[in-house]
């Protein structure tokens, strides 16, 4: 496509987007205003179900089916990426070579921060229903913490520390457990993903009914997904070589 044609396509698409954006934004309430109809409905419902983190209540209670869809998207896209990145027939997987020199200070920071990050991630997952964070964020923090081992320059250690089978299993089980919790609620109360457990006392770790349970299974799934996804990228970068002809 010539430069002019590309510009024309861009102006066409950009123009339509700009018009749609202006139409969409012009009727919105002002920035930082006091009128929040959504908040007025969401906050009382969250409090009624003993959930201190209203965002978690929206994600895992009021609109849990949306989150179920998102989890399915996550697992499907991870699956697609891993299928795409698997070593092809003309490639061989070799033992990862030595990565060379890493600064001592970088290694130290990596080794110190790894356990701290893992604990923080577990904390973010466990308190998802009552403080900011939750299964998704905590799962990502856990995966990031594990990959700090790569920053320390010890990819072989990372390779040993994360045998992929448990993470693949965790990913699948986490995603399935979300559906199972939903189905159990369907059997118990007659509606899918209804918050059917006791709500407990507001602000305690064992409160919020199913919100904490769903947070936990999402945390397991996201941790597994991220590790499996990054492992595919690492494998392509470090241990896969084109076979000698």
């Amino acid at each position: 496509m010539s430069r002019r044609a590309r510009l024309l396509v861009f102006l066409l698409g950009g123009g339509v987007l700009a018009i749609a954006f202006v139409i969409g934004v012009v009727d919105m309430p002002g920035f930082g205003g006091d009128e929040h109809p959504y908040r007025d409905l969401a906050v009382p419902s969250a409090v009624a179900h003993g959930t201190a983190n209203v965002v978690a209540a929206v994600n895992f209670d009021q609109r849990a089916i949306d989150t179920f869809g998102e989890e399915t998207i996550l697992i499907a896209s991870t699956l697609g990426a891993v299928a795409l990145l698997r070593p092809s027939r003309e490639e061989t997987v070799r033992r990862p070579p030595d990565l060379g020199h890493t600064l001592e200070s970088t290694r130290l920071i990596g080794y110190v921060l790894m356990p701290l990050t893992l604990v923080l991630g577990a904390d973010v997952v466990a308190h998802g229903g009552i403080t900011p964070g939750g299964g998704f964020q905590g799962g990502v923090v856990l995966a990031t913490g594990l990959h700090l081992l790569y920053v320390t320059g010890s990819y072989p250690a990372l390779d040993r520390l994360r045998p992929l089978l448990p993470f693949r299993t965790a990913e699948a089980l986490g995603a399935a457990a979300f559906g199972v919790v939903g189905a159990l609620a369907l059997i118990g109360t007659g509606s899918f993903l209804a918050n059917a457990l006791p709500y407990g006392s507001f602000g305690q770790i064992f409160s919020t009914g199913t919100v904490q349970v769903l947070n936990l299974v999402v945390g397991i799934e996201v941790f597994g997904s991220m590790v499996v996804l990054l492992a595919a990228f690492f494998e392509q970068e470090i241990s896969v070589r084109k076979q000698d002809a």
Partner: protein
Amino acid sequence: MTVLLALCLVLPAIAATAVAVTHDPERQAVTLATSGMLLCLLFLVLQAPDVALSELGIGTAIVPLMVMLTIRTIEKDRKTRRTDEDGDDS
């Protein structure tokens, strides 16, 4: 508060423009991480810590890491291709 908010709105916009005008993909991974960090600050100032945490994890850690790994894989592939061609010539 207004000044802080204005700053937090303007800085991600500048950083995002910087990502768009960075030509070298390897440097783009760094500017992308910076822009994600500033966006995370904006979410924090707007009192959305949940979103800020997600942005911090995905935008400043996982995505730049995947970009860097992809760039290195492509470079490695190019290098082996080049040595293969050299081998054929000799």
